[in-house]
């Protein structure tokens, strides 16, 4: 079943808990402005690799790594916006 954009945000929150092991309450409190890369110690380059693959599998999208720049993981909002754009493609 294709993902509707509204459920993308929920999936991203689940991913942050599952892949990074961040506490569910911390993830639930995140807003668009919550900084990620540099602010979440769990989010290093190794974790990013797993996060991208799991995002592809769960959202049924393909991510071309050339699309990825430093701003993708800047904030929770930027990550959700990227995922939503991919799901619409």
């Amino acid at each position, binding site marked *: 079943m294709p993902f509707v954009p509204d459920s993308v945000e929920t999936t991203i929150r689940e991913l942050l*808990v*599952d*892949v*990074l*092991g961040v506490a569910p309450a911390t993830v639930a409190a995140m807003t668009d402005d919550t900084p990620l890369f540099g602010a979440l110690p*769990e989010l*290093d*380059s*190794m*974790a*990013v*690799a*797993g996060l*991208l*693959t*799991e995002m*592809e*599998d769960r959202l049924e999208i393909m991510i071309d*790594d050339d699309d990825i720049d430093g701003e993708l993981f800047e904030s929770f909002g930027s990550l959700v916006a990227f995922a939503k754009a991919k799901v619409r493609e």
Partner: protein
Amino acid sequence: MSPRPEFRTYNFAGHDEHVLCFGTGSSRRILIIPPLFEEMNRCRRMLVQAMRALAERGAGSVLLDLPGCNESHAALEAQSLSTWREAVVAAATQLGATHMASLRGGALIDDGAVNVPHWRLVPAKGSSLLKTMIRTRIAGDKEAGKQTSEAQLLAEAQKAPIELAGNVLGPAMVAELTNAEPSEIVQLTLRLLGQDIAGSPLWLRTEPQDDPAMSAAIAADLDQWSATCVG
């Protein structure tokens, strides 16, 4: 008293490979095929705790070391999913497995010995495992100031072994991972996280973690399944 671990071996391709056993006196002997590559390390503690709990419930289990992994004398770069599938068959035969339980990438190599009931937890596609390793390699190269691409790495991997996220993988392994999917087998019980087993996907975590409740849930499920499902 906590169940005692026993170390045994199985022979494959001229090497004695390690297995860790609990509850060897039981009539049930569940061969556990762990996740592959780094995911194996991330799950080992949780799995061994599940094996102890299984032994306390009266079911024996055997955790397999694959050729080229852990203390194995075999070279990892000489392995492929095909050799690992054969190794699983060798271990199942030599150690008298009555059941087979695989996790994640373990489900890609559990289909050689199909005369025993199979249990799978969150099977993984080979392409996903490979992609994460390639991404990790590219990220590492980038931090070292080197630009590498997926296409470039895959081209290199056709000719010679390449190092991906700490694993030296030969051309056959990379080629097989690209297309591998868990195969359909007859006596299969599929378990998903959050639906059948409560717990966290420790195989995805880069920080080693433990989940005692998940170990207990896996042990309870394997015990019930193996008691009712006889090969």
